[in-house]
């Protein structure tokens, strides 16, 4: 690649089957393997962390309890008393995305949250859970939300389509935000890493200049750690906000 002076920034997002023939037959890709690893780590954190059931928690138990309390308070504060019902969903979404983002930062692994199909599926799950809950809780009154209260009736033909459009665009923004953030970060990694390799072949001064992109990548890694946590948080808190609107009377 370096010799041809081309940067393959998108190759890292390619899906390929794992576990040889069996994986190929089951269409089980590297993306799914990372999902399994992330799920196993989440469950391991909770099961191993809470195995002692200590009154005074150790490090792992404190981490598990901190994660639990963090999401529980978020769900409870945002959705209200009804939040308890949706807490497992919010917890699953947050940890699934967080672990996906962070596992993707391990060199050589795969970031399943950088695939629009995955983030769109998660966003549609949130969208339909919110929609069904709203229809169940509010019934026909739910459709009244598309006409803002106190607005002049004459503006209805303008306002109602806008409100419907903004409601329908929620899963789009939710999925694209996560997907674009994760993809952009990983493309940047690949670009700067490729710069280093390209500079390495540049006469004598090249290997010295090549340190520059490595330093940039180190800074990017810090940024990506922030972005990975932030995007998981944003996804979870928006889920809570949508569900609060759904359960509100």
């Amino acid at each position, binding site marked *: 690649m370096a010799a041809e002076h081309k940067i393959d920034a998108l190759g890292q997002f390619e899906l390929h089957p794992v576990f040889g023939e069996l994986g190929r037959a089951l269409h089980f*890709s590297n*993306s799914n393997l990372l999902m399994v690893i992330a799920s196993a780590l989440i469950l391991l954190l909770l099961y191993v962390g809470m195995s002692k059931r200590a009154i005074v928690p150790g490090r792992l138990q404190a981490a598990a309890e901190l994660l639990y309390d963090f999401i529980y308070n978020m769900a409870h504060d945002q959705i209200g008393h009804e939040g308890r019902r949706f807490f497992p969903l919010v917890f699953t979404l947050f940890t699934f995305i967080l672990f996906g983002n962070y596992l993707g930062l391990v060199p050589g692994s795969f970031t399943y949250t950088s695939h629009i199909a995955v983030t769109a599926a998660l966003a549609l799950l949130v969208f339909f859970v919110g929609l069904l809950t709203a229809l169940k809780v509010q019934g026909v009154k739910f459709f009244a939300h598309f006409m803002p209260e106190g607005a002049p009736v004459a503006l209805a033909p303008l306002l109602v389509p806008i409100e419907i459009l903004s409601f329908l665009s929620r899963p789009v923004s939710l999925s694209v935000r996560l997907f674009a953030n994760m993809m952009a970060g990983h493309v940047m990694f690949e670009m700067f890493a490729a710069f280093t390799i390209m500079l390495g072949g540049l006469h004598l001064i090249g290997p010295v200049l090549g340190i520059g992109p490595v330093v940039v990548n180190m800074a990017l890694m810090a940024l990506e750690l922030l972005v990975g946590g932030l995007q998981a948080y944003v996804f979870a808190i928006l889920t809570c906000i949508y569900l609060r609107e759904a359960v509100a009377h």
Partner: protein
Amino acid sequence: MTRSVLRRLPSRILSASGALLALGAPRAFAAGMPQLDFGNPLTKWQVVWGAVIFAALYLLLSRSALPKVAFVLAERRGRIEADLDAAKLMRDQADAAIDALRRARHDAAAEANAIVDKVVAEARAQAATRNAEMNARLEAQIDAAERDVAESRARALASLPAVASDTAAALVERLLGHPVEQARLSSAVDAVLADRRAA
């Protein structure tokens, strides 16, 4: 199904997928964004498998792992509340014990004061009766002494004329050289004594 899908793919994607499928083969350049390569069956299947994995994770978390954490947290909250209640109970007991002690000390002090007062009063009464007795006895003795003195005086006064007449007889005998008649002497002395007494 896979084959029919693959047959319809543009040749560039076909070659890329083919290169990927061959284990150990060098990675081909991605043609466009692999995320939007819906010709690759893995793009759709990762969502199917993802749904299965997510559902399994959700079920395990909501049915088993999260209730376990909730149980430990609730247990801790209960334990802390029970400890606080026990501590409060103990403090109440200690307060009650201190009150009882204070009351007992107060009662004991009052009782001691009463006993001291009683003893002092008794002692005072005893002293008073003893004083009275002593006074009475002393007065009796004084009376007796006074009576003795009066008696002695009377006796002395009674014997005075005899002594006077004897002395006078002796003086007269010495002066005259011979004894005088007893009767005359006695009357003369008595007369002088009577004069004295009258004076």
